[in-house]
């Protein structure tokens, strides 16, 4: 957006902006549907436009968008737990796994079942939510680092169980030949990415609507209150046990949806799809995207996934195309043309996170609230109201 030149223009621009914001605030669901429709239509067009069509063929782009959608879904779910309720969860991939394995048991030659896809989406979400609650319950008294460690452990245990319970999960090989979705008589085909793309758009639209509604509801306020001050929340009548478990359950169910979708798309489910790096990637996505801000997290996850899945993969090709010369640093010679940048994905994540924490800790697209929380100290304007406190008697 360019800066308006004259005050009159500024007023007009401001008015339009205000009106758009006001509309989107009052008719949020309609705005989400409109926005998602727009994005769904624009992305394929963009993929065929000049700078992007050079990277990879159109079908690969569309397929990549669907995969990015999976990560957006995961990020939205983790954002409920981490961003809204403030519970640091490092084992989020476990719920992704439960959704995927639920679908694999529901529709694959391995189990002999062939349940329809849409009900299985619900089943996957419910299974994941159940495990979300089962994990949440013992961790209710934990906070911060301790909670992170327990969830980390849980996230490690789950893939290992799926790996070692060979009789039931087919171990390392995983469950193959999972049936692709079939909706209203239309069988999805791996060769045609369009149905997957559109299905993901629909799932994301519904999820976004629901999460926005949750955020603005009584439950969303309770999550916010727990994040701000758990003791005060309890003293204000919030059942912290139920509220936290609901955060775990709803976050996990979103991951369950993503798991079912992903299993049906890849047609194979194996334990190595759900390692710690998935949890970490999703967490990095929401931190970079702007923790707590729903659309920020969605956009952040989409951008980061697309960057890593297409951009990094093709970066050496790009350097080859411009014939970037190899250079040497002392004894090492670096030839960017032959570097496989995807191998440095986590290094780049690490650098991005460190830079982000130093320069813009609230993320790329922060919520106003989060920005306030993180910039309290710098402003220094606020005389601590607790300065008079005799001693943290309640702590």
């Amino acid at each position, binding site marked *: 957006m360019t800066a308006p030149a004259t005050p009159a223009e500024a007023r007009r621009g401001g008015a339009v902006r205000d009106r758009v914001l006001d509309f989107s605030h009052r008719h949020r*669901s309609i705005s989400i549907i409109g926005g998602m429709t727009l994005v769904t239509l624009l992305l394929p067009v963009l993929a065929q436009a000049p700078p992007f069509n050079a990277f990879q063929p159109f079908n690969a782009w569309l397929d990549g968008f669907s995969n990015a959608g999976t990560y957006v879904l995961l990020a939205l779910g983790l954002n409920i737990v981490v961003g809204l309720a403030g519970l640091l969860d490092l084992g989020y991939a476990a719920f992704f796994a439960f959704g995927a394995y639920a679908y694999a048991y529901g529709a694959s030659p391995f189990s002999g079942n062939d349940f329809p896809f849409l009900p299985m989406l619900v089943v996957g979400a419910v299974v994941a939510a*159940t495990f979300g*609650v*089962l994990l949440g*319950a013992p961790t209710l008294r934990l906070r911060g680092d301790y909670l992170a460690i327990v969830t980390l452990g849980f996230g490690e245990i789950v893939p290992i169980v799926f790996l070692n319970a060979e*009789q*039931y999960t087919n171990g390392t090989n995983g469950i193959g030949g999972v049936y692709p979705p079939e909706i209203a008589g239309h069988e999805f085909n791996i060769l045609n990415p369009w149905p997957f793309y559109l299905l993901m758009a629909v799932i994301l639209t519904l999820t976004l609507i*629901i999460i926005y*509604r*949750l955020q*603005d*509801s*009584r*439950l*969303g*306020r*309770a999550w*916010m*209150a727990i994040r*701000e*001050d758990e*003791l*005060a*929340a*309890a*003293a*204000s*009548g*919030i*059942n*912290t*046990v*139920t509220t936290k*478990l*609901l955060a775990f359950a*709803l976050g996990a169910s979103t991951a369950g949806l993503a798991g079912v979708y992903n299993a049906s798309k890849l047609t194979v489910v194996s334990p190595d799809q759900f390692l710690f790096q998935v949890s970490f990637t999703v967490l990095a996505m929401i931190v970079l995207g702007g923790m707590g801000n729903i659309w920020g997290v969605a956009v952040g996850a989409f951008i980061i996934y697309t960057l890593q899945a297409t951009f990094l993969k093709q970066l050496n090709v790009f350097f080859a195309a411009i014939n970037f010369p190899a250079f040497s640093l002392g004894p090492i010679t670096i030839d960017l043309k032959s570097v496989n940048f995807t191998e440095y994905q986590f290094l780049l994540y690490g650098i991005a996170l460190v830079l982000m924490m130093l320069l813009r800790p609230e993320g790329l697209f922060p919520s106003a*609230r989060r920005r*306030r*929380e993180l910039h*309290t100290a710098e402003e220094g304007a*606020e*005389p601590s*109201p*607790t300065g*008079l*406190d*005799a001693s*943290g*008697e*309640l702590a």
Partner: protein
Amino acid sequence: MTTATPATPATPASPRAGEGSFVLDARGITKRFGGLVAVRDVTFQIPDGAIVSLIGPNGAGKTTFFNVIAGLMDPTSGFVTFRGRRMIARPIRAWLEPVLWVLPALLIVVIAAGEFFVSRDQTHLALIIAVALAALAAMFLAAIVRPNWYNRLLHYVGIFRSARPNDMVMAGVGRTFQNIRLFPNMTAMENILVGMHSRLTSTPVDAFLSSGRQRREEVSSRERVRELLALVGLRGRDDELARNLPYGDQRRLELARALASNPVLLLLDEPTAGMNPRETAEMTRLIAKIRNDLAISVLLIEHDMRVVMGISDRITVLDHGERIAEGTPEEVRRDPKVIEAYLGAPAA
């Protein structure tokens, strides 16, 4: 369902008439932290519609006692009855609760193991273990979605758990903190809406569907928030962030948040701490107004003698965790033990 209905039919404000009818009755409360006895055998009643104060020098155990009443910590002995219901006491058979959870699942697993040894059929084993997990999950769900059923089950088995802070709010006890504990990055409106949480009935499913009930409730609750803000003198400050409010206003906001749950008893922990004389006078008037207009009983912990003497109906004095005096402000003022506790024993 309007949000403005009190937790229970309000009783008329009659501080003196309620002889023998107590809204809160704490008997023989003792709280021990290791070797330290913070509160020793304190018996304490709050008559219906009265303002009762708890005073004492620093470290007398006021806040500990207060936290016991508010459900924040279980007493070592003694119990608290709130409006005829025993809410807080030392837990009975608390060890049984985890057993209650695990036992059904454990039973199923034992049956599964037995079955396995007979039939050697692994699918059955897996199925039965899945049933055990489902039983556990069902128990969780019952506890979360229908806490009342769960509590009845606990009662039936003979387990007593003290009320948690949120249970006390549900029953009709609102509280504020000595060191203000607002939600600093939420607006005044949101803070009070959180305080109203226990009186709102919309479920997550209502939120999913954005049902009529949910929308009506959101509108009516915001209406009520404005009323509360006006009551405490913060009219029109709805969208102000809690942490940007001046100190005195933060205290009022916290009071409004406590009032949002439509309590019958308000616990105020040093509501005028750190206030200047003018703010203190305003706060005192506000507390009196809350009692008189809303028929809410008030328990006050306070250092400022002028506040306490001015508005209290009864005063209880604690020192070293023990109750050393109880009576009307006049009686307490003359009590030699109180004078000694505050000013030290007269020089011999």
